């Protein structure tokens, strides 16, 4: 259909034959770029190729950068020690844009173009859930470092594993006894009104109930909100503990406004470190958090009783005693989560060695060998602490840290036990066909 009025003219620039040819040449250049090159299948003597689905751009970029650093450090350590089954390990990185649709494409790209042995490293839950079908259809093991409950819920598929970081349901359950015994028994929850918040909304009340404490109010804050003062009057006066899990850029405003609302007399505060990953705890506006407590997966700040393995891990990854990049104090790490990349890669190593893994034709054996794992002892391969692994739900269980903000640092005041976070399996992946 003609466009007589120039309705769709994006510019009035005319096109000469020379410029058109340049455009065509550019198009041809793109067409022969490496993206089109078919990759030959890895041979058994070739490196073990691990497809790293990285959040290089999008909302997860801060995590993605530190996940890459940690994974690179783990791969170097593994290679320096002889690799996996005598083969060197190679990370192949693709950006998923922290987007579930792109995530699924990237998993497909790893499986069918890069022909990696496994896919690894995803954090954000929606990307994991969006990518899981592609992993199952391509029958490629998919090792995530997400902390979401989605893997353990057994709603994904047999090719998805989370062996290097505990899930949020287990974390919350582990926190409840300490909160009830030390912070208070009347808890008000403030959480973002989307899935991450819902995990806390759903799992905390029963966990506290079992400890003789109660959630007396639940305040869900819409994800589009940028000011929070109007929600604070909803906090019941008898509240003894405010349990907050706000995440994203608005968290600084949230804390600042909460401080202005309460002034010097406030209830106890308990939060999850997810709120402040990659953010300096001493940022202006966060002074109100002094004296409050946080869940930490792995401590951001070096502790007096750090194990040699923990010290070696921190040195290998390149974080200083304050949890920032060595040489750049402003580049704060995502310490609570990124250790999961290190530990997951060592689980992959162990499972590949158990399976006698030689190449993609052994992926099913790798799945079964991973499912057969039971325990990971604390040490250089698992510096965060010991873990158990439930092969039926593809999820590990471990210790958690409760840290107090003191003098601008986080000091671990309590470590939970593995048993604190155990729960009944909700299904069994091993019944699914490979």
């Amino acid at each position, binding site marked *: 259909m003609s466009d007589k009025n120039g309705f769709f003219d994006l510019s009035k620039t005319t*096109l000469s034959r020379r410029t058109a040819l340049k455009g065509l040449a550019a198009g041809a250049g793109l067409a022969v770029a490496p993206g089109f090159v078919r990759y030959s299948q890895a041979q058994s003597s070739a490196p073990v190729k691990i497809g790293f689905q990285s959040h290089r751009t999008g909302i997860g970029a801060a995590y993605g950068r530190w996940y890459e650093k940690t994974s690179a450090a783990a791969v170097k350590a593994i290679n320096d020690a002889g690799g996996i089954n005598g083969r060197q390990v190679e990370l192949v990185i693709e950006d998923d844009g922290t987007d579930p649709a792109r995530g699924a494409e990237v998993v497909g790209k790893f499986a069918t173009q890069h022909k990696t042995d496994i896919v690894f490293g995803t954090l954000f839950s929606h990307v994991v859930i969006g990518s899981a079908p592609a992993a199952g259809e391509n029958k490629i093991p998919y090792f995530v470092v997400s902390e979401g409950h989605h893997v353990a819920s057994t709603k994904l*598929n047999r090719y998805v594993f989370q062996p290097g970081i505990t899930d949020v349901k287990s974390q919350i359950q582990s926190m409840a006894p300490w909160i009830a015994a030390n912070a208070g028994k009347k808890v008000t929850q403030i959480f973002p009104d989307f899935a991450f918040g819902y995990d806390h909304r759903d799992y905390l009340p029963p966990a506290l109930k079992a400890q003789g404490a109660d959630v007396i109010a639940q305040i869900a804050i819409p994800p589009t909100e940028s000011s929070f003062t109007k929600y604070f009057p909803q906090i019941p006066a008898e509240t003894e503990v405010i349990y907050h899990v706000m995440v994203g850029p608005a968290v600084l405003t949230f804390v600042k406004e909460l401080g202005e609302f309460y002034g010097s007399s406030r209830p106890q505060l308990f939060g999850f470190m997810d709120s402040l990953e990659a953010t300096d705890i001493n940022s202006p506006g966060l002074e109100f958090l002094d004296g409050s407590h946080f869940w930490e997966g792995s401590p951001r700040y070096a502790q007096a009783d750090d194990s040699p393995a923990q010290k070696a891990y921190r040195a290998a990854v390149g974080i200083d005693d304050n949890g920032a990049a060595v040489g750049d104090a402003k580049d704060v790490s995502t310490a609570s989560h990124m250790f999961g990349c290190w530990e997951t890669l060592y689980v992959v190593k162990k499972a590949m060695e158990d399976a006698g893994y030689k190449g993609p034709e052994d992926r099913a054996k790798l799945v079964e060998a991973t499912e057969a794992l039971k325990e990971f002892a604390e040490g250089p391969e698992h510096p965060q602490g010991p873990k158990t692994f439930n092969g039926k739900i593809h999820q590990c269980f471990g210790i958690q840290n409760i840290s107090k903000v003191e003098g601008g640092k986080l000091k671990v005041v309590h470590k939970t036990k593995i048993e604190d976070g155990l729960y009944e399996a909700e299904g069994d992946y091993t019944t699914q066909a490979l």
Partner: protein
Amino acid sequence: MTEASPAKAYSLHLGVIALLFALSFVLPDYHHGLIARIMVLAVFAMGYNLLFGYVGLLSLGHAMFFAAGLYGAGLSVYHLGWSVPAAFLAGIACGALLALVIGVLALRTSGVAFMIVTMMFAQVFSLLMLYFAVWTGGDQGLVVQQAARVLTLGGTTLDLTNPTVRYMSALALFSIVLLATLAVVRSRYGRVLVAVRENEERTKMLGYDTFSNKLAAVVVSGTICAASGAAYALLFGYVGSSFASVQYSILPLLWVLLGGAATALGPLIGTLFMYYVTDITSGFTSAYLLIVGVALILLVLFFPKGIMGSIRQRWLGWLP
């Protein structure tokens, strides 16, 4: 514009369909999967093109129609255990109904107001998907299990997760929608839509009920987008609120503008171009969006009416 004979126009489009069919047998695995996805999303762009390209109504809310199909089909399987055909029809019905309601309300406006109203409705839809997270899975979304994505036709069972079946299913949907939109825009009704775009007042003066024609276009457009969303859920197995976000309202606009608005093949070309520029450049740098942006600027400079629009303007005036 030089009017093409029906045979010429249909031959070209049937040729494109034949080419896509042939590609199925020669494409490397990764590109085979990617083209299947692109064909499904090109259907989304074709639905958008019908309204934007031919009627001149710029919607910033078409993600809600795509997502209506996505959720309509995905949730029918996930919660109700419906079969693939029933779920696909449910997705289409959801999109058609939503488009009818939105059309009746939004067509009371035009121009910038239409853009804003459609964007607001889409935002409401997106937030509703988050609000009803118990059923929709919220921002995390839901997986439609492999076992449920099986199509039984007579005595034959087709596994939609099989790459060949998925490619052919996507091609079938793409072909039907391509030929249907071609037929619509070449029909008397299609010419009325173009007349509305070019001069609505004059069209009214000629005795046409422009509101009814525009409403029908919104419904057809929304239904096609919903078909794309329903196919996406069933072929790729994921249902999530990111598909209802404003990004997925902007993307079809971009695809259509790049490929050529008011051209039948433009949506496919635009979707293909954007996907491959992103895919290739992201292999070189994390700043790939910068390269994508430069590529878009170059396109605007050299192909101001989009790729197919500019080709039609300069060389092939008969292109539909």
